[in-house]
Protein backbone atom coordinates (compact mmCIF):
# COMPACT_ATOMS: atom_id res chain seq x y z
CA UNK A 1 0.00 0.00 0.00
CA UNK A 2 2.80 2.38 0.94
CA UNK A 3 4.64 1.75 -2.31
CA UNK A 4 1.47 2.28 -4.29
CA UNK A 5 0.70 5.66 -2.66
CA UNK A 6 4.24 6.82 -3.25
CA UNK A 7 3.66 6.43 -6.98
CA UNK A 8 0.02 7.39 -6.99
CA UNK A 9 0.36 10.86 -5.46
CA UNK A 10 2.73 12.34 -8.06
CA UNK A 11 0.49 10.84 -10.75
CA UNK A 12 -2.66 12.53 -9.42
CA UNK A 13 -2.33 15.71 -11.55
CA UNK A 14 -2.03 13.65 -14.74
CA UNK A 15 -5.77 13.26 -15.44
CA UNK A 16 -6.32 16.94 -14.70
CA UNK A 17 -3.52 17.96 -17.08
CA UNK A 18 -4.89 15.58 -19.70
CA UNK A 19 -8.32 17.20 -19.40
CA UNK A 20 -6.83 20.69 -19.74
CA UNK A 21 -4.73 19.60 -22.73
CA UNK A 22 -7.87 18.21 -24.36
CA UNK A 23 -9.54 21.56 -23.75
CA UNK A 24 -6.76 23.31 -25.66
CA UNK A 25 -7.56 21.24 -28.75
CA UNK A 26 -11.15 22.43 -28.79
CA UNK A 27 -12.12 25.76 -30.25
CA UNK A 28 -14.71 27.94 -28.57
CA UNK A 29 -15.76 28.85 -32.10
CA UNK A 30 -17.24 25.48 -32.92
CA UNK A 31 -20.01 25.25 -30.38
CA UNK A 32 -22.46 22.90 -32.03
CA UNK A 33 -25.76 24.50 -32.91
CA UNK A 34 -28.75 23.15 -31.04
CA UNK A 35 -30.73 23.51 -34.27
CA UNK A 36 -28.97 21.08 -36.62
CA UNK A 37 -31.58 18.80 -38.19
CA UNK A 38 -34.43 21.02 -37.01
CA UNK A 39 -36.70 23.13 -39.18
CA UNK A 40 -35.30 26.64 -39.47
CA UNK A 41 -37.29 29.08 -37.33
CA UNK A 42 -39.74 30.83 -39.60
CA UNK A 43 -39.56 34.59 -40.07
CA UNK A 44 -41.15 37.28 -42.17
CA UNK A 45 -38.90 40.32 -42.41
CA UNK A 46 -38.45 43.46 -44.46
CA UNK A 47 -35.76 43.41 -47.13
CA UNK A 48 -33.39 46.36 -47.46
CA UNK A 49 -35.55 47.41 -50.42
CA UNK A 50 -38.63 47.48 -48.21
CA UNK A 51 -40.39 44.32 -49.41
CA UNK A 52 -41.67 41.67 -47.06
CA UNK A 53 -40.02 38.25 -47.31
CA UNK A 54 -40.97 35.04 -45.52
CA UNK A 55 -38.36 32.33 -45.22
CA UNK A 56 -40.91 29.69 -46.18
CA UNK A 57 -41.34 31.37 -49.60
CA UNK A 58 -37.86 30.10 -50.43
CA UNK A 59 -38.41 26.44 -49.56
CA UNK A 60 -37.59 24.18 -52.48
CA UNK A 61 -34.16 25.78 -52.85
CA UNK A 62 -31.02 25.25 -50.86
CA UNK A 63 -30.68 28.38 -48.73
CA UNK A 64 -27.46 29.91 -47.49
CA UNK A 65 -28.69 32.12 -44.67
CA UNK A 66 -25.88 34.49 -43.82
CA UNK A 67 -25.95 36.71 -40.72
CA UNK A 68 -23.66 39.67 -41.35
CA UNK A 69 -22.94 43.32 -40.59
CA UNK A 70 -21.07 46.09 -42.33
CA UNK A 71 -18.90 46.62 -39.25
CA UNK A 72 -17.78 43.00 -39.26
CA UNK A 73 -14.29 42.58 -40.76
CA UNK A 74 -14.48 38.82 -41.49
CA UNK A 75 -17.74 39.50 -43.35
CA UNK A 76 -15.70 41.44 -45.93
CA UNK A 77 -13.44 38.45 -46.25
CA UNK A 78 -16.31 36.07 -46.96
CA UNK A 79 -18.26 38.45 -49.17
CA UNK A 80 -16.61 37.26 -52.44
CA UNK A 81 -17.52 33.66 -51.50
CA UNK A 82 -21.20 34.56 -51.28
CA UNK A 83 -20.94 36.58 -54.48
CA UNK A 84 -19.41 33.59 -56.25
CA UNK A 85 -22.22 31.36 -54.97
CA UNK A 86 -24.83 33.66 -56.53
CA UNK A 87 -22.93 33.53 -59.84
CA UNK A 88 -22.19 29.82 -59.98
CA UNK A 89 -25.53 28.43 -58.84
CA UNK A 90 -28.78 29.25 -60.55
CA UNK A 91 -31.32 31.02 -58.39
CA UNK A 92 -33.85 28.23 -58.59
CA UNK A 93 -31.38 25.85 -56.93
CA UNK A 94 -29.53 27.90 -54.39
CA UNK A 95 -30.49 31.12 -52.71
CA UNK A 96 -28.19 33.33 -50.70
CA UNK A 97 -30.10 35.37 -48.15
CA UNK A 98 -28.45 37.86 -45.84
CA UNK A 99 -29.78 38.82 -42.43
CA UNK A 100 -28.44 42.10 -41.12
CA UNK A 101 -27.17 41.82 -37.54
CA UNK A 102 -26.92 44.84 -35.20
CA UNK A 103 -26.39 47.29 -38.00
CA UNK A 104 -28.23 50.11 -39.69
CA UNK A 105 -29.57 49.65 -43.22
CA UNK A 106 -27.72 52.68 -44.62
CA UNK A 107 -24.30 51.24 -43.66
CA UNK A 108 -25.32 47.86 -45.03
CA UNK A 109 -26.33 49.47 -48.31
CA UNK A 110 -22.98 51.26 -48.58
CA UNK A 111 -21.23 47.95 -47.88
CA UNK A 112 -23.10 46.20 -50.71
CA UNK A 113 -22.42 49.11 -53.08
CA UNK A 114 -18.76 49.02 -52.27
CA UNK A 115 -18.18 45.24 -52.38
CA UNK A 116 -20.81 44.35 -54.98
CA UNK A 117 -23.48 41.66 -55.01
CA UNK A 118 -27.19 41.82 -55.54
CA UNK A 119 -28.58 39.14 -53.26
CA UNK A 120 -31.31 39.99 -50.80
CA UNK A 121 -30.63 40.98 -47.22
CA UNK A 122 -33.44 41.26 -44.69
CA UNK A 123 -33.43 43.54 -41.66
CA UNK A 124 -33.73 42.07 -38.19
CA UNK A 125 -34.83 44.78 -35.78
CA UNK A 126 -34.23 43.81 -32.17
CA UNK A 127 -32.17 40.80 -33.32
CA UNK A 128 -35.23 38.60 -32.82
CA UNK A 129 -34.42 36.36 -35.75
CA UNK A 130 -30.75 36.18 -34.77
CA UNK A 131 -31.79 35.06 -31.27
CA UNK A 132 -34.27 32.61 -32.80
CA UNK A 133 -31.38 31.06 -34.72
CA UNK A 134 -29.04 31.08 -31.71
CA UNK A 135 -26.62 33.48 -33.37
CA UNK A 136 -23.87 34.85 -31.17
CA UNK A 137 -21.69 36.73 -33.57
CA UNK A 138 -21.14 37.51 -37.20
CA UNK A 139 -20.54 36.07 -39.63
CA UNK A 140 -22.61 32.97 -39.04
CA UNK A 141 -24.20 30.99 -41.85
CA UNK A 142 -26.89 28.37 -41.86
CA UNK A 143 -27.31 25.92 -44.73
CA UNK A 144 -30.96 24.96 -45.18
CA UNK A 145 -32.00 21.98 -47.28
CA UNK A 146 -34.85 22.21 -49.77
CA UNK A 147 -37.39 21.43 -47.05
CA UNK A 148 -36.14 24.23 -44.83
CA UNK A 149 -34.27 22.07 -42.33
CA UNK A 150 -30.97 23.33 -40.94
CA UNK A 151 -28.31 20.98 -42.26
CA UNK A 152 -25.17 22.81 -41.25
CA UNK A 153 -24.00 25.89 -39.41
CA UNK A 154 -20.77 27.71 -40.06
CA UNK A 155 -19.42 30.06 -37.42
CA UNK A 156 -16.95 32.52 -38.85
CA UNK A 157 -16.27 33.33 -42.47
CA UNK A 158 -17.26 30.88 -45.19
CA UNK A 159 -14.72 29.53 -47.62
CA UNK A 160 -15.59 28.62 -51.15
CA UNK A 161 -14.66 24.96 -50.71
CA UNK A 162 -16.85 24.67 -47.61
CA UNK A 163 -19.78 26.43 -49.23
CA UNK A 164 -19.51 24.39 -52.41
CA UNK A 165 -19.19 21.01 -50.74
CA UNK A 166 -22.08 21.73 -48.36
CA UNK A 167 -24.37 23.13 -51.04
CA UNK A 168 -23.52 20.34 -53.50
CA UNK A 169 -24.28 17.64 -50.96
CA UNK A 170 -27.63 19.27 -50.15
CA UNK A 171 -28.46 19.58 -53.86
CA UNK A 172 -27.51 15.94 -54.41
CA UNK A 173 -29.68 14.83 -51.48
CA UNK A 174 -32.68 16.68 -52.90
CA UNK A 175 -32.19 15.56 -56.52
CA UNK A 176 -35.17 13.51 -57.75
CA UNK A 177 -34.54 9.78 -57.64
CA UNK A 178 -31.74 10.06 -55.08
CA UNK A 179 -32.39 8.75 -51.64
CA UNK A 180 -36.06 8.09 -52.29
Amino acid at each position, binding site marked *: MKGATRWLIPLLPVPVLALLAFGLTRSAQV*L*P*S*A*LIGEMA*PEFTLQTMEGDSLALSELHGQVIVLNFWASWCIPCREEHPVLARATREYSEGDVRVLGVLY*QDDPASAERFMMRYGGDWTTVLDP*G*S*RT*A*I*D*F*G*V*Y*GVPESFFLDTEGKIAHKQIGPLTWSLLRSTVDSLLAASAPGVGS
Partner: protein
Amino acid sequence: MLMAAVILAANPVTGAPRPQDREPLSPAEVDQLTAEVAAQLRCPVCRNQAVLESSSGLARQMQTVIREKIAAGETPEQVKAYFVSRYGGWILLKPEPRGINLLVYLLPAAAVLFGGAVLFRQMRRWTGSVGSEEPAPEPPDEALSEEEEAWLRRQIGSAR
Protein backbone atom coordinates in the same frame (compact mmCIF):
# COMPACT_ATOMS: atom_id res chain seq x y z
CA MET B 1 -44.56 43.22 -3.10
CA LEU B 2 -46.04 40.40 -1.06
CA MET B 3 -47.53 38.94 -4.24
CA ALA B 4 -44.14 39.00 -5.92
CA ALA B 5 -42.57 37.25 -2.97
CA VAL B 6 -45.27 34.58 -3.06
CA ILE B 7 -44.80 34.06 -6.78
CA LEU B 8 -41.03 33.84 -6.47
CA ALA B 9 -41.35 31.42 -3.59
CA ALA B 10 -43.81 29.28 -5.50
CA ASN B 11 -41.57 29.27 -8.52
CA PRO B 12 -38.17 27.89 -7.64
CA VAL B 13 -35.91 26.55 -10.37
CA THR B 14 -37.47 23.11 -10.19
CA GLY B 15 -41.01 24.34 -9.63
CA ALA B 16 -43.91 23.16 -11.73
CA PRO B 17 -45.06 25.53 -14.47
CA ARG B 18 -47.74 27.84 -13.24
CA PRO B 19 -51.05 27.69 -15.01
CA GLN B 20 -51.29 29.91 -18.07
CA ASP B 21 -54.68 31.29 -17.16
CA ARG B 22 -53.70 32.97 -13.92
CA GLU B 23 -53.98 36.71 -13.37
CA PRO B 24 -51.65 38.86 -15.46
CA LEU B 25 -48.42 39.79 -13.73
CA SER B 26 -47.88 43.30 -12.47
CA PRO B 27 -45.04 45.29 -14.08
CA ALA B 28 -42.95 44.79 -10.94
CA GLU B 29 -43.43 41.04 -11.13
CA VAL B 30 -42.48 41.01 -14.81
CA ASP B 31 -39.33 42.98 -13.94
CA GLN B 32 -38.44 40.58 -11.19
CA LEU B 33 -38.94 37.42 -13.24
CA THR B 34 -37.11 38.94 -16.22
CA ALA B 35 -34.13 39.74 -14.02
CA GLU B 36 -34.28 36.25 -12.52
CA VAL B 37 -34.09 34.60 -15.96
CA ALA B 38 -31.55 37.09 -17.35
CA ALA B 39 -29.24 36.37 -14.41
CA GLN B 40 -29.15 32.68 -15.34
CA LEU B 41 -28.46 33.08 -19.05
CA ARG B 42 -25.03 33.58 -20.55
CA CYS B 43 -24.54 36.63 -22.73
CA PRO B 44 -23.50 35.05 -26.04
CA VAL B 45 -21.12 37.82 -27.05
CA CYS B 46 -19.43 38.26 -23.67
CA ARG B 47 -16.95 36.27 -21.65
CA ASN B 48 -18.73 34.47 -18.85
CA GLN B 49 -21.16 37.25 -18.11
CA ALA B 50 -24.88 37.00 -17.49
CA VAL B 51 -27.36 38.60 -19.85
CA LEU B 52 -28.53 40.68 -16.89
CA GLU B 53 -25.10 42.22 -16.31
CA SER B 54 -24.14 42.85 -19.89
CA SER B 55 -24.72 46.12 -21.69
CA SER B 56 -24.05 44.62 -25.13
CA GLY B 57 -26.68 45.12 -27.79
CA LEU B 58 -27.49 41.43 -28.12
CA ALA B 59 -27.81 40.95 -24.35
CA ARG B 60 -30.19 43.88 -24.09
CA GLN B 61 -32.27 42.52 -26.94
CA MET B 62 -32.32 39.14 -25.23
CA GLN B 63 -33.66 40.88 -22.13
CA THR B 64 -36.42 42.38 -24.25
CA VAL B 65 -37.32 38.93 -25.58
CA ILE B 66 -37.32 37.51 -22.03
CA ARG B 67 -39.53 40.34 -20.79
CA GLU B 68 -42.02 39.87 -23.62
CA LYS B 69 -42.26 36.14 -23.04
CA ILE B 70 -42.74 36.61 -19.28
CA ALA B 71 -45.34 39.30 -19.86
CA ALA B 72 -47.12 36.95 -22.28
CA GLY B 73 -47.50 34.45 -19.45
CA GLU B 74 -44.58 32.10 -20.02
CA THR B 75 -42.88 30.72 -16.93
CA PRO B 76 -39.16 31.33 -16.32
CA GLU B 77 -38.64 27.63 -17.04
CA GLN B 78 -40.31 27.96 -20.43
CA VAL B 79 -38.27 31.03 -21.31
CA LYS B 80 -35.03 29.29 -20.36
CA ALA B 81 -36.07 26.23 -22.37
CA TYR B 82 -36.57 28.49 -25.40
CA PHE B 83 -33.00 29.81 -25.16
CA VAL B 84 -31.61 26.32 -24.59
CA SER B 85 -33.45 25.13 -27.72
CA ARG B 86 -31.72 27.87 -29.73
CA TYR B 87 -28.27 28.09 -28.16
CA GLY B 88 -27.91 24.70 -26.51
CA GLY B 89 -27.19 24.02 -22.82
CA TRP B 90 -24.18 26.34 -23.12
CA ILE B 91 -26.48 29.35 -22.69
CA LEU B 92 -27.18 28.39 -19.07
CA LEU B 93 -24.53 29.83 -16.76
CA LYS B 94 -25.15 26.97 -14.36
CA PRO B 95 -25.09 23.69 -16.27
CA GLU B 96 -28.02 21.34 -15.74
CA PRO B 97 -27.02 18.46 -13.45
CA ARG B 98 -27.49 15.84 -16.15
CA GLY B 99 -25.26 13.47 -18.12
CA ILE B 100 -21.61 14.51 -18.34
CA ASN B 101 -22.45 17.80 -16.61
CA LEU B 102 -22.91 15.80 -13.40
CA LEU B 103 -19.11 15.60 -13.21
CA VAL B 104 -19.04 19.33 -12.54
CA TYR B 105 -21.08 18.75 -9.40
CA LEU B 106 -19.67 15.41 -8.27
CA LEU B 107 -15.94 15.79 -8.92
CA PRO B 108 -15.30 18.62 -6.44
CA ALA B 109 -17.18 16.74 -3.72
CA ALA B 110 -15.24 13.57 -4.51
CA ALA B 111 -11.95 15.50 -4.47
CA VAL B 112 -12.77 17.03 -1.07
CA LEU B 113 -13.69 13.64 0.38
CA PHE B 114 -10.55 11.99 -1.01
CA GLY B 115 -8.29 14.84 0.10
CA GLY B 116 -9.90 14.81 3.54
CA ALA B 117 -9.29 11.08 3.89
CA VAL B 118 -5.64 11.42 2.86
CA LEU B 119 -5.14 14.36 5.21
CA PHE B 120 -6.81 12.53 8.10
CA ARG B 121 -4.54 9.50 7.70
CA GLN B 122 -1.48 11.69 7.41
CA MET B 123 -2.34 13.79 10.46
CA ARG B 124 -2.81 10.70 12.59
CA ARG B 125 0.64 9.64 11.54
CA TRP B 126 2.08 13.06 12.45
CA THR B 127 0.47 13.26 15.86
CA GLY B 128 2.32 10.12 16.85
CA SER B 129 1.23 6.93 18.51
CA VAL B 130 -1.95 8.08 20.27
CA GLY B 131 -4.57 5.56 19.40
CA SER B 132 -2.59 4.25 16.45
CA GLU B 133 -2.24 0.59 15.67
CA GLU B 134 1.59 0.75 15.92
CA PRO B 135 2.52 1.39 19.61
CA ALA B 136 5.75 3.29 20.22
CA PRO B 137 8.63 1.13 21.53
CA GLU B 138 8.63 0.69 25.30
CA PRO B 139 11.36 2.62 27.14
CA PRO B 140 14.17 0.27 28.20
CA ASP B 141 13.87 -0.54 31.90
CA GLU B 142 17.20 -2.26 32.45
CA ALA B 143 19.10 -1.12 35.49
CA LEU B 144 22.28 0.90 35.00
CA SER B 145 25.53 -0.97 34.93
CA GLU B 146 28.01 -0.33 37.76
CA GLU B 147 30.22 1.58 35.39
CA GLU B 148 27.38 3.84 34.33
CA GLU B 149 26.32 4.44 37.89
CA ALA B 150 29.84 5.40 38.92
CA TRP B 151 30.06 7.79 35.99
CA LEU B 152 26.72 9.34 36.87
CA ARG B 153 27.75 9.89 40.49
CA ARG B 154 30.97 11.54 39.40
CA GLN B 155 29.06 13.90 37.16
CA ILE B 156 26.58 14.85 39.89
CA GLY B 157 29.39 15.24 42.40
CA SER B 158 31.43 17.57 40.20
CA ALA B 159 28.39 19.73 39.47
CA ARG B 160 27.92 20.50 43.16
